[in-house]
């Protein structure tokens, strides 16, 4: 059978062909969509997307409940990093501010080389290092792509217990490096 199409000579079929019912139905569908609500996310100005908790974005260094730094400067994250973008300099802390005596004097990540694989997160024995959900990492200055310990210890805009996978309201603000999107986590909607 070279031609599988069966010719259907019923009256309804002929009328359908002559009166272009299919084409008119198609036009009706698209005309109906003209008046539905649009699904576009207005990303930088009005809305932004909060990723799921499993998302691997910018690094963050955690503290324990008492507010102490969890990082003990063991350098396992730096050793496990495939691109060797993490620099850790440990030191002996005599004041007892850290969880142990050994803390990181310097903890720096080069985001230009980081590929967000999450191996450092896996290697961390004290669960100090996590990959957060901040994904707006572009900047005008190259120096901004080297994030130091102090920057990563600061609480991020999206807390870890926030569920994610939603669109929230946001507003576009300017800082010294360019534009920053500030999310408003109290208003959420699922966009599908």
């Amino acid at each position, binding site marked *: 059978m070279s031609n599988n199409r069966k010719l259907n000579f019923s009256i309804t079929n002929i009328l359908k062909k002559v009166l272009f019912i299919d084409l008119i139905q198609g036009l009706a569908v698209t005309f109906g*969509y003209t008046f539905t609500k649009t699904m576009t996310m207005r990303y930088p100005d009005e809305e932004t997307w909060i990723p799921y908790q499993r998302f691997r974005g910018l690094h963050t260094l955690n503290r324990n409940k008492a507010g102490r730094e969890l990082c003990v400067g063991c350098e396992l994250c730096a050793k496990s990093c495939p691109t060797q973008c993490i620099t850790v300099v440990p030191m002996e802390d005599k004041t007892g501010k850290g969880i142990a005596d050994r803390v990181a004097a310097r903890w720096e990540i080069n985001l230009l080389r980081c590929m967000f694989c999450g191996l450092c997160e896996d290697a961390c024995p004290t669960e100090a290092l996590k990959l957060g959900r901040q994904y707006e990492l572009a900047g005008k200055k190259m120096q901004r792509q080297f994030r130091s310990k102090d920057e990563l210890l600061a609480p991020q805009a999206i807390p870890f217990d926030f569920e994610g996978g939603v669109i929230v309201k946001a507003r576009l603000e300017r800082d010294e490096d360019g534009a920053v999107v500030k999310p408003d986590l109290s208003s959420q909607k699922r966009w599908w």
Partner: protein
Amino acid sequence: MSPALITILEVVIICVKVVVVCLILFMLPLPLTYMERKVAGHIQVRLGPFRTGFHGLLQPFADMLKLIFKEDIIPSQADRFLFKIAPIIAMVPVFTVYATVPFGESVTIPFINQKLNLYISDMNVGILYVLAIAGLSVYGMILAGWASNSKYPMLGGLRSSAQMISYELALSLAAVGVVMMSNSLSLLDIVRGQYDWHWNIIYQPVGFFIFLIAGIAEINRIPFDMPEDEGTLGAGYHSEYSAMRFAFFMLTEYVAMVTISTLGVILFFGGWDGPSFLPGIVWFVLKVIAFIYFFMWARFTFPRYRFDQLMAIGWKILLPLALLNILITGLVII
């Protein structure tokens, strides 16, 4: 006023009318590109332009600035003279058509008591002139395709010529039915023949259907945009054009769309005929916009035809149907 003064006044009025019509036509791509983007956005459940100005209203001006300041590239192996002149050759016929298109009844200008006709000239062979001139715009496309000295533009130009020949026939024969109804080739008389809701669409539905399909094919819009089929031909006959030369082709396409809409309104929808609470020219413009909306609506609904399907529809369906339409119209009139 002395007769000499009146003659001078008439000449001045005609010149002003020509300038005004040309300015309007040159500015047409601005609102139409915006409208096309917005219609596309809403049909595809997205917003369309929103960032440039209020609701993206400055987007067409941004486009215009971009096209003006882009580098004008001419391929090294191209036929430079034809390459440069092709956009202008494409542009002239679509503008020339408006010499005979009537936009409304005559109005009297206050203060000087001079009658102002809302058309540049009333030719007694108006419809013949329009169809003949509109068919000439294919020269621009085929010259552009030839002069680019490149495979795909060449194919686009050839397809365009084949398509124009096939569909010009059906278009003209669809108009013949209307001419038989109104006993005149003048566009003004055709509109006057459709007074008081005696629109030709009621008497010539098949003719209108043929006119609509052949019209979409004439102005190369989806589903019949074979000359610029970006899936198979790159961008089609204007692949090698950039900057203002490309903008001229875009202008040509938009003005051609308005031409077909205007013709459709004049031939089948009673021109400026409508309830008297609005002036005639407003009804005319509204109907033209409705036609343009339909073209855009169809563009974002239907997939493109294959070239052999296009030819089959033109020659095997539309042409016999148009001839049959003429035959039946003739029998009914007798």
